């Protein structure tokens, strides 16, 4: 199954999803298309004509362009997902996930899709980390059972 993860560039979430035989929908695979495509003049600073159009599907025109630009990349990943995992309160320096409004919009879109969602908090202690891993594994196994 295709699992959307949030933050979409998390090492722990992506690795655990793969270990259970599912496919994590990660941000890096989308970024790869942007930075290796010869059609873009000086990647990753430029965007294509298509990107703002894609972003408009998820955020209105009056929404800051940064949110729309990010949603052009995150949105299709959320649309593609069969299930999702959200890890809230991730540290601020979590890669390019520095936009709080985009994060809220992403989480809203995930919840709106009515797919199985596991909501977690970023762990701060050993006990919390162990519980997080067990919960993720339990959730991923339950998805397998539901789908045979």
């Amino acid at each position, binding site marked *: 199954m295709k699992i959307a993860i949030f933050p979409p*560039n*998390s*090492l*722990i979430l*992506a*690795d*655990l999803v*793969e*270990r259970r035989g599912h496919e*994590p929908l*990660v*941000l*890096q*695979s*989308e*970024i*790869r*298309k*942007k*930075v*290796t*495509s*010869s059609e873009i003049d000086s*990647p*990753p600073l430029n965007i294509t004509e298509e990107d703002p159009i894609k972003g408009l599907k998820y955020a209105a025109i009056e929404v800051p362009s940064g949110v729309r630009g990010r949603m052009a990349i995150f949105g299709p990943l959320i649309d593609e997902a069969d299930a999702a995992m959200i890890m809230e309160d991730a*540290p601020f*320096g*979590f*890669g*390019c996930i520095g936009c709080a409004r985009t994060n809220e919009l992403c989480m809203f879109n995930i919840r709106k899709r009515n797919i199985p*969602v*596991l*909501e977690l908090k970023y*762990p701060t202690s*050993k006990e919390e*980390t*162990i*519980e*997080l*891993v*067990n*919960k993720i*594994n*339990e*959730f991923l196994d*339950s998805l397998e059972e539901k789908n045979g």
Partner: protein
Amino acid sequence: MSPPKNPEVTEKNPDDQVTRMIILGPSADISQTELVRILHMMEIPLTIKSTCYGAVIGGDKDVVEQAVQKIREVDEYNIFTKDRGFPPGDPRRCRAKRGGAREGFHQLEKEFELLEDVSKALKNPQKVKVKECKKISPEEFRKIAEECK
């Protein structure tokens, strides 16, 4: 006259080229040098770059997947992998050219702190109950809002 095309050389689709980061957990049985040596010994067409956290490998999608599968077998609970957008040693991201850590490094550093506990949890799996999140009624929400006043 253009030179005849070599039938053995086929053009590669850039979409099939992937990059993977291999991250060694704090209690890994192998070092970065050993990791890179094992990757070289696989004798598969990969671009391998040794890094402080492990290695970055790049190449055809199926070849990279094969390498990831094999390397996980070396130390299942302490080797973690993650996709990467930029190719290995890309001057736009490589710290040798840019000066200073690349953007994603700070995140990796933060998540690295948890890897020891993650590997412990993977070694000793426990049954836990996953609570399903449900919407609350407007009355309940009103009650919570009043309590927070």
